[in-house]
């Protein structure tokens, strides 16, 4: 930046006035005229405040972007760096140290955290699972899925209905739900995978809605909107209730005073283990031929097909794997909540999971984990803002995207050293 940048206050003032005028048009009716039945109350004070804030804000912003720092910043945002970061071949990941540390801290959490914090962390981990599942579909295979919540619902209702109709408990339903969801993924996948990008998006959206509508309408089987209760997990047959109809309860067996936190501790520990298992499997898959095929297909479908990749199979495998992870998350959700009903599986949930994947940095596992925690913990932290909570959440979503459009964490790849004699 060699040129001398001065601040042109006249330009900034004009910017600010234009913004103020627009703000007046936008806020004038909605904020200034409060509807009350068929009449209204004028609230022009609020409008004046908001317009003033916009004018001052725009003026400050306009001035800032004329300073050297501002110019550099806007230049940076106009030219986002692309692609993955390639590490040098001999790179030693710091993860070797960090992962054990996180595991130790993670294992300690249930014993130091309060019950409320523990439930929030459980919810965070459930969303980590969901994010990981959708990350395979969207981040790695590049298939935009807006109905991921359907698989989540299948897992959750699988547990509740399996318990009610077949007497299957948490442990037997955990694998069955994963298989069920994968199967649903296959049924959905076969006809739709030949569609392109956004057509796929709307069809998956439709699929998610259909699942929810069926859960709502088929009341004789699913109990409709009333929802149904889901069983708690057991530890070798020991239940985590205060009293048990058959068999022992956990606290009686170990001679502990009853505490409802045990239940959450146990769910947390199991979930923690499952999340690590999924992380491990996914980490390996990405390095295997199938994982490479997903990413290759995302980048250039025609090239892949002409090289003999079976694109249907590759896409389908991504779809099914993602779906089964969603199913797992559903089982945990149902058991954590003890109750499921269709209102937990709306489109907004799909959007939230997608936001986790995109915000985390598409395809990045670490990013998904961080984003999942941010997006579930954030609304809880924002409770302090009471009714402004969701508004803040929306603003943060937009700001995050503008600030870091490629997500929090960039995908990294291990570089390969050229072998002698092969590449000159």
């Amino acid at each position: 930046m060699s040129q001398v940048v001065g601040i042109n206050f006249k330009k900034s003032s004009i910017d600010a006035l234009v913004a103020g005028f627009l703000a007046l048009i936008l806020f004038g009716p909605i904020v200034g005229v409060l509807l009350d039945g068929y009449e209204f109350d004028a609230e022009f004070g609020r409008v004046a405040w908001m317009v003033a804030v916009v004018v001052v804000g725009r003026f400050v912003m306009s001035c800032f972007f004329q300073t050297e720092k501002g110019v550099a910043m806007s230049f940076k945002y106009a030219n986002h760096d692309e692609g993955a970061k390639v590490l040098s071949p001999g790179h030693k990941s710091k993860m070797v140290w960090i992962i054990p540390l996180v595991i130790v801290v993670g294992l300690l959490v249930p014993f130091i955290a309060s019950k409320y914090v523990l439930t929030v962390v459980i919810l965070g981990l459930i969303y980590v699972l969901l994010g990981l599942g959708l990350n395979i579909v969207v981040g790695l295979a590049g298939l935009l899925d807006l109905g991921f919540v359907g698989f989540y619902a299948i897992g959750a209702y699988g547990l509740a209905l399996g318990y009610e109709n077949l007497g299957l408990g948490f442990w037997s339903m955990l694998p069955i739900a994963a298989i069920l969801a994968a199967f649903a993924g296959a049924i959905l996948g076969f006809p739709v995978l030949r569609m392109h990008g956004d057509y796929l998006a709307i069809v998956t959206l439709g699929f998610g809605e259909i699942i929810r509508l069926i859960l709502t309408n088929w009341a004789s089987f699913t109990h409709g909107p009333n929802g149904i209760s889901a069983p708690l997990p057991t530890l070798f047959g020991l239940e985590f209730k205060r009293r048990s109809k058959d068999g022992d309860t956990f606290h009686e067996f170990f001679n502990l005073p009853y505490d409802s936190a045990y239940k959450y501790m146990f769910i947390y520990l199991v979930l923690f283990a499952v999340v690590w298992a999924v992380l491990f499997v996914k980490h390996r898959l990405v390095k295997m031929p199938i994982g490479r095929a997903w990413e290759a297909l995302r980048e250039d479908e025609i090239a892949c097909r002409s090289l003999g990749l079976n694109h249907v199979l590759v896409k389908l495998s991504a779809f099914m794997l993602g779906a089964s992870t969603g199913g797992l998350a559903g089982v945990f959700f149902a058991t954590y909540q003890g109750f499921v009903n269709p209102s937990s599986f709306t489109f907004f949930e799909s959007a939230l999971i997608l936001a986790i994947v995109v915000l985390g940095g598409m395809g990045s596992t670490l990013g998904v984990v961080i984003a999942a925690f941010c997006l579930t913990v954030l609304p809880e932290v924002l409770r302090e803002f009471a009714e402004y909570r969701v508004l803040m959440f929306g603003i943060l979503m937009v700001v995050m995207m503008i600030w870091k459009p490629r997500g929090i964490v960039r995908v990294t790849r291990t570089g390969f050293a050229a072998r002698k004699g092969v590449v000159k």
Partner: protein
Amino acid sequence: MDIVLQQLVNGLTLGSVYGLIAIGYTMVYGIIGMINFAHGDVYMVSAYITAIAIALLTFFGIESFPIIIIGTLFLTVAVTGAYGWVIERIAYRPLRNSSRLSVLISAIGMSLILQNYVQLSQGANQQGVPTLLTGAIRFTVGDGFVQITYMKLLILFISLLGMGVLTYVIQKTKLGRMCRATQQDRKMASILGIDTDKVISTVFVIGAMMAALAGVLITLDYGAFDFYVGFIIGIKAFTAAVLGGIGSLPGAMLGGLILGLSEALFAGLISSDYKDVFSFSLLVLILIVRPSGLLGKPEVEKV
């Protein structure tokens, strides 16, 4: 017989409104390839402005229906258009060179912002507008009758008019040519001297205006709305846009009509419980047979 005819009328009016909103989705998609999830909420904002405009006009003592409706249409379309412009400027333009998914998330965030902004400033309660136009035409068919309110006729008339004007603008005017050029090849258009950023802004404004048109008509007809109405109708209109072939203007209108008719006929003749299941299934079926929608251009796979 009378029942089927009445259902056709129901479906046509519903469908024409879906079509109007679908235009916003389809134009934005056509020009920058993004799904504008906040579009349904732009419609919601326009419903509030409609009620506010009516309240203001009646406050100033205007009683005659034509003046109220013209004034309301004018005010609502103008203010909602401004919303369209500002939303694009704040939430989407900074992301012009980013991946389409980032824009999608930004749009979802925008949708939350709009809903909560309206809720916080207007309250969460149900709102309504007074019935301004009453009366209906009644045809006797066999033993029964078909009843069409004047409002429904007005909806059909204004939405057809709106679509007609838009088609003319896009096909015949310079602005339309600029839009089409940008849609074909943004880079090329900008090389040829078209200010593509401005064109994109214009498209957002047009989309918002069409949604506002629908907002005024629906609000006058159904009378009821809250800050949450944008969601369902947004999804429906988006479905309609995809059904007709996203990116295609006549496709959006056709998709809207098909969706409206199929919903009305299915709900009326079979079951209203499963009408949305039917709509989505219909969409899937059509997309399996025609992967780019009814009037969409098949995507050419380029190497």
